[in-house]
């Protein structure tokens, strides 16, 4: 590009500051109202996940038996307290545990699901995808056949078996059984990211700047880390963000069927399972956790959609 372009007569030349990928993307993201709502909700969820226990009016496992007895004496019958009764904004469960405090603890669980599972996925999926894409040929074939097997393997079964195997070990008990669930969900869902990274590498490998780098003798490792990964990182970020709702769904589903976080802690999924027993009299015990799950999923979906449109305008509106 050695030719100097001169403005045509009458043309106003506007300085365009060289904008990097990220500045460009941020500019596009800022104009997307739904994505901003998502970003705000994600930040709120992160805040609640980290500081929730300090805001919570009660410890999540503390039983307010006095309030339950008082309610019984006042003629409300024995059972969960309704929202607003006896100083419990969202009511309590049948054991007198404050629902708001338990929901806030659930936020902490969901936030850690969102972060830890995606970390596991990245740690497994990116190297495998990168190796497969870079050394195409036999190794690639082998790795991709391996992903076929993982894909056909029932993830629910794998997670349940893993949780039964490790239930009594230190690993199984770490963080109230959560760590194992996260690792298990991660181990079953890295395939998408691996395939994505591989596809990215395969197409980037053919680009001219990679060819140029290779021609001047840059090492393979450097080409991968300096040229290929930074160029392929956009779609990976999008895939990770859009993978978070899946992980939250998986965790809440596992907790709902009773595998997952150990009592007395409760994730939103197990709160729904517990509350379901009182569905006729106290539908709020199911409704509030359901609203929490839905808004957490919505926030990451909005943000992920927005990021995708911002980072890769070509793919606008596609999955």
């Amino acid at each position, binding site marked *: 590009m050695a030719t100097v372009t001169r403005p045509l007569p009458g043309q106003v030349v506007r300085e365009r500051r060289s904008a990097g990928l990220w500045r460009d993307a941020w500019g596009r993201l800022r104009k997307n109202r739904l994505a901003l709502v998502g970003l705000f909700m994600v930040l709120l969820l992160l805040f609640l996940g980290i500081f929730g226990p300090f805001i919570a009016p009660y410890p999540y496992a503390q039983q307010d038996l006095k309030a339950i007895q008082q309610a019984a004496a006042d003629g409300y019958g024995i059972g969960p307290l309704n929202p607003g009764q006896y100083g419990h904004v969202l009511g309590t469960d049948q054991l007198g545990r404050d629902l708001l405090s338990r929901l806030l603890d659930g936020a902490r669980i969901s936030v850690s699901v969102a972060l830890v599972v995606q970390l596991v996925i990245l740690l497994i999926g990116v190297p495998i995808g990168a190796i497969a894409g870079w050394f195409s040929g036999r190794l690639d074939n082998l790795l991709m056949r391996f992903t076929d097997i993982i894909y*056909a393997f029932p993830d629910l079964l794998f997670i349940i078996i893993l949780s039964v195997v490790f239930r009594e070990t230190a690993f199984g008990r770490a963080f109230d059984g959560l760590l194992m669930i996260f690792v298990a969900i991660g181990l079953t869902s890295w395939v998408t990211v691996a395939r994505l990274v591989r596809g990215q590498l395969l197409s980037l490998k053919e680009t001219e700047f990679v060819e140029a780098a290779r021609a001047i003798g840059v090492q393979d490792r450097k080409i991968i880390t300096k040229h290929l990964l930074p160029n392929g990182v956009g779609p990976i970020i999008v895939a990770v963000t859009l993978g978070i709702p899946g992980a939250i769904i998986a965790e809440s589903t596992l907790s709902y069927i009773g595998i997952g976080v150990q009592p007395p802690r409760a994730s939103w999924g197990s709160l729904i399972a517990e509350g379901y027993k009182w569905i006729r009299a106290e539908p709020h015990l199911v409704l509030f956790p359901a609203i929490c799950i839905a808004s957490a999923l919505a926030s990451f979906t909005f943000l992920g959609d927005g990021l995708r449109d911002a980072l890769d305008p070509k793919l606008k509106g596609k*999955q």
Partner: protein
Amino acid sequence: MIRYITRRLLWIIPVLFAVSVITFLLMHAVPGGPWAREKALPDAVEARLNAKYGLDQPLYEQYGRWAIAFATGDLGPSYRYQDRTVNDIVADGFWVTFQLGVMAFGLAVLVGIPLGILAALGHNRWPDYLTTSISILGVTTPSFVLGILLIVVFSVQLGWFPTGGWEGPETWVLPTIALAGFPIAVIARYTRASMLEVTRKDYIRTAHSKGVRNQSVVSRHMIRNALIPVVTILGPTLAFLVTGSFIIERVFNIPGIGQFYLNAISTRDYSLLMAMTMLYAFAVAFLNVVVDVLYAYIDPRIRYS
């Protein structure tokens, strides 16, 4: 084409083999066995039981026996339901699960695709907003939550449908909707995006400018081309329906195979667990081949080698 299909179908065999070995090893790594009860059996009884079912043999021999029996269609005795073979249990529950899956798939396609098309045709007007809201709801509500909410509203509050069971058409409605909710949202989103992309294509402009009626541009050029990429997500959708049905069966107390699957793990019912896993893996692998073949059939530009 036929060579491609045969190769893909044959590839299912090594996949199933690998899945069976992994499951077998994992299963036997789990502490406890099928005879663990609240009250422990006397050692001698347990040893006799193990001998009778071959559980005292080395693992590779147990696997070999299982594999040979499996290849001949014998899924073995159930350890938990001792009066029934695994073949009976699978035969009983399979059709219920299959029926639920097929109905949910049908609903997802029949609602999702038209919703997506309407949204794209009414881009940025009310049909678009309606579809977007429905798909946001569908994507943000896990199927078990949707199931429970449906029960709360339509069974408990309104009393229109029973809360569970699988006895007749009125019991089918809620589970089918609950299972189809998520796929409807995904399919609608995808169809909408695909339609919007096709709208901008040159051949659509050509069709319009040579005076083809709008109606036939939409039906003959836009929809047919827009649906091609939609086929690719049907594979993941079907896989979702298979696992999703297990959870929905639990929510609605439906006597399909999903119930047995979850129980088989906790009771270490080895043979039942293996059979269910193989069934699942086969379903996922096979449906993937079907979708890929369908893809080539719909879009003649795609050729497989």
